[in-house]
């Protein structure tokens, strides 16, 4: 039992570490000091570190983002938290026109290090405005670093690193469903010195899966599932930093397997799959032996009805089917996950947030 850590506790550790080790750090946002404490990740921090350093804000996301720019210029390290990533859309002006550009525009005279944490809602009727995965929107902008920690280890190491060493604005998307996921405490897949880097989660020879956020966990599940019935060797890469992916790692893997699945939490068009296609096509058009598979949300606004929501998101079955298709070219006689196996985690999640 001692070897287990859940995602939210890893984040909480990193927040505590931030306040303890970086005396300039401050943590704020809507709900940071309430009894829910951003799903437990900021619980008790105000009591321990005081309300100058840990505080709730008015509902003024735009202003509080410009505030981060100013505070950062003034020597603080702001950690600004949003319980839904959708609220980042109110902060785009400050993030893109100021935070992303401050260092470059002034010829390197300034820097604006900060960490923006934003939660992607999924499942249980979060609907149009509480469920969006906006990583590609931000990753498009030079000057922003966008990460999507998919595990307790990734979250804790990335945040500790950001807070102590990284001098650029970081936007991190945390997936709501990951918060209660259990992870091995001793996992060491991440490079301490470069924790935002993409990394190998599982090594394999037949198929490459490049995944982000919770889709990394789904890919691991798909690989486990298939290993019970078939002998397919799957390589899983966690993109980790969407804005600064490790191209060499990804292309070498595709060179080895010739078969690629990209599994992202967001819409497909102009997304992660498109970006990886760009990498491939600009490097070597012969890398793929088969057309790639792209998994992500349907090209629609997230519907609330369960039935539609279920169709909207990619799931374990989509992954398994894609893997069979790439490997065998057929699904005939292949074992496919049952409804229960697919929806288990989504069923058990009951919000309310």
């Amino acid at each position, binding site marked *: 039992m001692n070897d287990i850590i859940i995602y939210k506790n890893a984040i909480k550790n990193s927040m505590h570490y931030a306040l303890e080790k970086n005396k300039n750090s401050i943590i704020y946002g*809507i*709900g940071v*000091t*309430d*009894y*829910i404490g951003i799903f437990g990740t900021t619980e008790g921090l105000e009591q321990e570190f005081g309300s100058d350093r840990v505080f*709730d*804000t*008015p*509902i*003024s*996301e*735009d*202003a509080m983002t410009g505030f981060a720019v100013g505070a950062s210029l003034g020597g603080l390290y702001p950690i600004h938290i949003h319980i839904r990533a*959708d*609220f980042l*859309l*109110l902060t785009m002006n400050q993030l893109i026109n100021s935070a992303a550009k401050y260092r470059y525009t002034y010829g390197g005279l300034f820097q604006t290090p900060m960490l923006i944490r934003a939660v992607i809602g999924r499942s*249980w*009727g*979060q*609907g*149009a*405005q*509480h469920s969006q995965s906006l990583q590609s929107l931000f990753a498009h902008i030079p000057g922003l670093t966008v990460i999507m920690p998919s595990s307790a280890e990734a979250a804790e190491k990335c945040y500790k690193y950001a807070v102590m060493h990284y001098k650029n604005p970081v936007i991190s998307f945390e997936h709501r469903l990951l918060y209660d996921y259990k992870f091995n405490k001793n996992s060491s897949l991440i490079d301490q010195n470069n924790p935002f880097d993409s990394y190998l989660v599982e090594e394999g020879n037949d198929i490459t899966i490049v995944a982000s956020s919770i889709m990394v966990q789904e890919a691991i599940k798909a690989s486990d599932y298939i290993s019970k019935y078939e002998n397919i060797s799957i390589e899983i890469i966690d993109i980790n930093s969407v804005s600064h992916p490790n191209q060499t790692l990804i292309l070498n893997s595709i060179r080895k397997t010739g078969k690629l699945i990209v599994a992202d939490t967001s819409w497909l068009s102009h997304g992660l799959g498109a970006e990886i296609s760009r990498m491939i096509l600009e490097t070597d058009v012969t890398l793929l032996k088969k057309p790639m598979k792209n998994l992500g949300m*349907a*090209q*629609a*606004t997230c*519907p*609330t*009805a*369960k*039935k*539609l929501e279920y*169709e*909207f998101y990619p799931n374990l079955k989509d992954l398994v089917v894609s893997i069979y298709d790439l490997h065998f070219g057929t699904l005939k006689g292949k074992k496919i996950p049952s409804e229960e196996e697919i929806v288990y985690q989504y069923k058990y999640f*009951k*919000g*309310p*947030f």
Partner: protein
Amino acid sequence: MQLYEKLFYEALKIRLLEEKIIEVYPEDKVESPVHLSIGQEHHIVSIMEPLTNKDIVFTTYRSHAVYLAKGGDLKLMLAELYGKQSGISKGKSGSMHLCSPEHGMMGSSAIVGAIYSHSIGMAYAQKIDTSTNNITLCITGEGATEEGVFCETLNFASLKQLPIIYIIENNGLAINIPIEVRQSYTIEKLAKAYNIEYHSYEDSFDMLTINNKFSKLVTDMKKSPRPIIIEIHTYRYLEHVGISMDYDKGYRTLNEYEAWYKRDPLVLNETLIKRYKNKIIKDIDDAINFAENSPSSFKDELLTDVY
């Protein structure tokens, strides 16, 4: 029916519906977040009463009361909450985004503050259409006024003398954070700064007084269009989202709740409750049956209306 009884009936309908939702929620048929209106029904029916279907209302995720009071249909609403094809928006919107265009209720937004600017746009359209004298209501909590866009729209509404009424439901809370932690201003003084007429309704339970004052205001406003802010002091009985009480969480006290509850006409007026409860319950049960027996949203809805 006398006016008071009519208002009472409408408010009771909302109360009983919300209570029904609480009852069925654990069965997991409403698989989405609900922001219940319990405690905040009274003033909503009072201010919806004098409006026509051409008078437009925008509101937030806490939209059940407004939907019903503006004329929305129980069956369509429950089917929507149940994720059914027969719902208002075919199951795509759920509780947070209720609307009823034929009654003048535009889309409810789950983004705090988003509707302020929609509302001034609508009011502008109403203003330049000189053939009518319709008005717009924009209903938000007091927390939403912390978004910068609130002030930006006050300025514009005042500059252009738009026919808009901002209803600020002051329940003292934004999620679990009390107003003292969030606000350094009063709405009254803000209104003054922007040269906007301000009214405060101190007791949201006083349906008749509110209805009376508000109706006069609407009549007057239709003659001389202008922006108005009305702050209504009210109280949220339940947690921000979900169906539970949360007085054990330490951010507010049970005493506070009891002080309101003890005065609540929807609890005290046994005569009227007795007179109407059974009929309303029957309507609600019919609506629940309708929702349960309707087919789930059709699969091809997923990619319908995308453009």
